[in-house]
């Protein structure tokens, strides 16, 4: 089987997975007690039961769940994500405003985290049991034992509260007019520092261990000894011969971890009032806003599946030995 057919097969697998995820979430939110109409009406006594019935009918909520699911799918394929019950706006607009905010956090975390983890992982594996190794291992242990939202709170207390170096919430300083576009960027960058640092810290803690242990394992292989024996320079042995193979598990992990990073971002976005998808998810989860929740679920599912596909492609490129079956 060629690389192309392999990737086609992997892509085809995405379709049932996508339906499975949306079906699970659709069923979950529709089976839950409480309906959106009651929540919208709230304590408003002016609305008569007859009017309530009509609203339920308008939203199509009186149909059985499977009919509602098929209708939702049909609208989805026409490109219609619906209208938010809670925000009275088009869901497509609400969601598309928030996607870049989350992507920004995730991409920066993935890139900075990966770079840091590789550098630290290689250094620590080469100098196993050194002081550097000890410090990094301890740092990683703290990084994955500390809850990220707590680190966020501590970061806000120290850097925004006590030292007043960084802003504590949002994406921009409101009410300030900046002279140039660079000042606007600089302001935004300052808002990014705290949330990104905390996400990176947690992410590096995981990746670092993976790179380090994988590198240690590769460095014990015979072909590394052979390379050294024939006089290849140590730098070349480590970065060319060893690193490439040591990165195989890391590449897969990176792609499969989109859901993990996304969930981490949801908590951090809430702590820093960052207007992204994660905070939006937290905001709408409680109010039975079906169209918005479903649109968010689709985006989350697509992001995760895309991450898996990228991992598969990257794996196939990095590892020429892979068998496509």
């Amino acid at each position: 089987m060629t690389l192309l057919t392999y990737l086609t097969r992997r892509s085809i697998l995405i379709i049932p997975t996508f339906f499975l995820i949306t079906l699970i979430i659709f069923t979950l939110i529709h089976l839950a007690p409480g309906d959106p109409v009651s929540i919208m009406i709230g304590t408003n006594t002016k609305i008569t039961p007859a009017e309530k019935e009509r609203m339920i009918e308008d939203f199509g909520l009186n149909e059985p769940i499977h009919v509602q699911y098929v209708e939702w799918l049909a609208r989805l394929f026409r490109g219609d994500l619906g209208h938010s019950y809670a925000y009275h706006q088009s869901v497509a607009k609400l969601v598309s405003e928030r996607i870049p905010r989350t992507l920004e956090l995730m991409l920066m975390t993935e890139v900075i985290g990966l770079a840091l983890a590789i550098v630290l992982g290689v250094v620590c594996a080469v100098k196993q049991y050194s002081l550097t190794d000890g410090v990094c291992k301890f740092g990683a242990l703290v990084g994955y034992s500390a809850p990220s939202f707590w680190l966020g709170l501590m970061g806000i207390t120290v850097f925004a509260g006590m030292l007043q170096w960084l802003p504590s919430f949002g994406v921009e300083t409101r009410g300030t007019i900046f002279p140039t576009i660079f000042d606007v960027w600089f302001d935004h960058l300052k808002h990014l520092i705290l949330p990104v640092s905390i996400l990176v810290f947690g992410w590096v803690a995981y990746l670092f261990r993976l790179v380090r242990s994988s590198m240690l394992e590769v460095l014990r292989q015979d072909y590394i000894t052979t390379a050294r024996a024939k006089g290849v320079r140590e730098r070349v042995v480590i970065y060319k011969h060893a690193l490439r193979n040591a990165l195989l598990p890391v590449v897969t992990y990176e792609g499969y971890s989109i859901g993990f990073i996304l969930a981490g971002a949801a908590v951090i976005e809430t702590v820093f009032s960052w207007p992204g998808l994660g905070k939006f998810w937290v905001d709408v989860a409680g109010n039975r806003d079906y169209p918005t929740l479903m649109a968010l679920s689709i985006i989350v599912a697509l992001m995760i599946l895309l991450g898996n596909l990228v991992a598969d492609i990257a794996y196939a490129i990095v590892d020429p030995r892979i068998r496509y079956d």
Partner: protein
Amino acid sequence: MNSRLNVKSEKRTDKIHKPSMATQLATVWRKLRASRLAVFGGAIVFAVFVVALFAPLIAPYGPEDRYITEPLRPPFSEVWLGTDDLGRDVASLLILGARTSIYVGIGAVLLEAAIGLAIGMIAGYFGGLIDEVLMRIADVVLTLPTLMLLILAVSMFEMQGINVIILVSGLLGWPLLARVVRSEYLSLKQTTFVEAARSMGAGQWRIILRHILPNTMSSVIVLLTMDIPWYIFYEASLTFLGFGDPTAASWGVLMEHGRRFLSSQGWWIATFPGLAILITSLGFNLFGDGLRDALDVKTRVQ
């Protein structure tokens, strides 16, 4: 001299036949004690368990005891870890919160173990189409964003928040365990002792449960130990985000509560529960690492 040696070695071959459970445990115990970090981690885990178990006896005040002193007294004054804005004792709330965390951690891990073991052993032992289907399902579940689904589930089913957390995180937490168990079964089912058992007429479920299962326990226990902090995180994150019972004694609830006083005169309310989570999960992780070395489990998961 010669004869004595012979007697000794004969005796020994008799014993080697099967090392008793106690001997095996003693070996693991000795190796564990040799690692200082593992002992440290184990001590933390033990302490947290004791605190969780006897929380109402240890805590000087109850969760509803207000105005034991003035509100917002700083730590290390007349109250050990200070009081919150309602004048409740932060130390007592921490002690009572340990119970919630451990309850969720243990409950979810037991559910994960039940599902993961069942799926892993069936997939690994029977192989073929069953294996293929189960592992594809595991792949899908593995990529689901657990915390986001937890948020959804807890906000949809408001009653019994803590049990919903256990149920959902256990239902989503099994794929890695199932993979590990499956790979153990794949290799163990081809060993001589399994063949011997089969040739003696042991049924397949007897082989699966009595012969292979005990041999997978090392890796299962290590994995489960290191999953407990995850479930503790989930519970704390959810209650911190405002999902779940706001009156419960939980580290996440306390942090959510203390969040408002961080910049003013109450930094300790949110700081201490976070430290409690950090120390607890550090304990489980160190202990798990130590167990892995002592039980000689291969490091790489896949």
